[in-house]
């Protein structure tokens, strides 16, 4: 798992220079990696979704929005995107929005998740 949040505190801050519109940031961050999860470090369901991908052998990129100084904005943007007051955790695969935990599990059960992961290059075999 890569915790991109660390980058905001370090010397290397490439994402800061990019446009301040939160939605733009969301889209950009989502498309940078194969599997992107927006999460809250304290949230247990977020933990569950992370464990799911790790259990499948996938290495997701996690953004802990409660540890990001502009995390609140991102969270609001995601709220608008999902039309939900509790948008986290939310998963993007190959830049495409998959959704929250229920959508992720549904797609795993109906067999569409693994092909998506393979397509995005997150899974081999």
């Amino acid at each position: 798992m890569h915790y991109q949040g660390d980058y905001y505190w370090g010397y290397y801050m490439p994402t800061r220079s990019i446009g301040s519109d939160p939605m733009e940031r969301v889209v950009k961050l989502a498309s940078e990696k194969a599997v992107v999860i927006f999460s809250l470090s304290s949230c247990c369901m977020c933990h569950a979704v992370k464990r799911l991908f790790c259990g499948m052998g996938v290495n997701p990129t996690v953004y802990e929005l409660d540890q990001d100084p502009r995390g609140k904005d991102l969270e609001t943007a995601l709220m608008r995107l999902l039309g939900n007051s509790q948008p986290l955790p939310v998963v993007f695969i190959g830049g495409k929005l998959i959704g929250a935990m229920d959508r992720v599990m549904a797609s795993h059960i109906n067999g569409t998740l693994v092909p998506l992961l393979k397509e995005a290059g997150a899974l081999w075999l």
Partner: protein
Amino acid sequence: MANHHIPYALLHGMNVPTSFINQEGSAFDFGELEEAIVLQGAKANLLTGRTAATLEMFPSWPMRYQQTPGSSKSGGESTDSGSALNTISSKTENQFEPDFPISKKASSSYHQAFDQQNLQLQQQQQQEMASDPSRTGTSLNQSAPIVKPLQEKKRASTSEKQLDAKTLRRLAQNKEAAKKSRLRKKAYVQQLESSRIKLTQLEQELQRARSQGLLLGSSGGGVGNISSGAVICDMEYARWLEDDERHMSELRTGLHSNLSDTDLRLMVNTYLSHYDEIFRLKGMAAKFDVFHLLTGMWTSPAERCFLWMGGFRPSELIKILISQLDPLTEQQLMGICSLQHSSQQAEEALSQGLEQLQQSLIDTVAGGPAIDGMQQMAIALSKLANLEGFVRQADNLRQQTLHQLPRILTVRQAARCFLVIGEYYGRLRALSSLWASRPRGRLMSDEQPCQTTTELQMVQPSQSHFSHF
């Protein structure tokens, strides 16, 4: 006026047995009247049979017949009779009211019947009188007056007199009936009030008993505090189980009767909607009482023992199905195994998430001396709120798994799957009942509370709070 205590018959020289004479008070007129009518002949039988009964019931009747014979002769005197009737009516009304058991409706209908009969008799008598002038005027006049008062009321020259007597009678009856009605209403209201008080008392007792853990009821051993949400959940679930029985028998007959695939698919889809219904119910129950679901109090003990996150474990169910579905194609087998595998992964993820929640909650509740008690509770409460989310996700997983089955399998196989599932859980429920009612040995005294619990559960309809979801 003074004559009104003397029987007409005697007054007019009729031959009347002395036993009928002058029983003072209101009752005497019955026998007298009856006798007099009998002596008259025509339609007497008709009248007697009926009027005897009715007359006996209505002490107010005699008033009418206390008129003086003179009143029958002239219109003028009928006023007197009318007024006499007035006073008599009012007197007797007061006298008889408390003893009167007949309802207003009955009394008025009786009166109407009597009126009609008398009308007939009067008409006949008039005809007799008219057609047979040879008869002794007196005797006729003597006999006629028996019913004359009534007849006269109807034929009085002034309609007012007629109305008076009749109206008075009606008014008297109405007054009586109204009073009785008021008394009845009062009694009813009093009864309602006392019932209400009793109900409140019972509720309080029940609450007290529950809080003391005296009532084990359906909530299991220990402190039996069952929330209303839980009660509703159990009720809805019992209903769902009844529907399940129906659907299962339909599927069974469908499979055995070799229905077409289209028809079978329809049945399978109906069954899936039936499952969707229980998940919807559980979703609502999770809002009201998540612990009721998570602790499995809505299920039978055997199911409760192997519960996973408030219901069945999908991967376990699929394992059962694989063993039951014999001829599977390579593709189908792969599909089923893949389904089992995915389900296992999802279950694992959810379990780990729930574990983390538990750990977090423990940390909060254990707390430390530095943490403010109120704040601690507030944080703990907000963490507990996450439980609902986990139960919902678990149910979601179950629902998705069931929906996936018909996609991998043929229609017949899918139908068989649902039958297998239903029968399996039915057997688990039966197992719970059998276990609870098995003969017990020396250890009975130790196990008493638990047994009472399960026994209580068994005593209730077998479908209540038994689950397989």
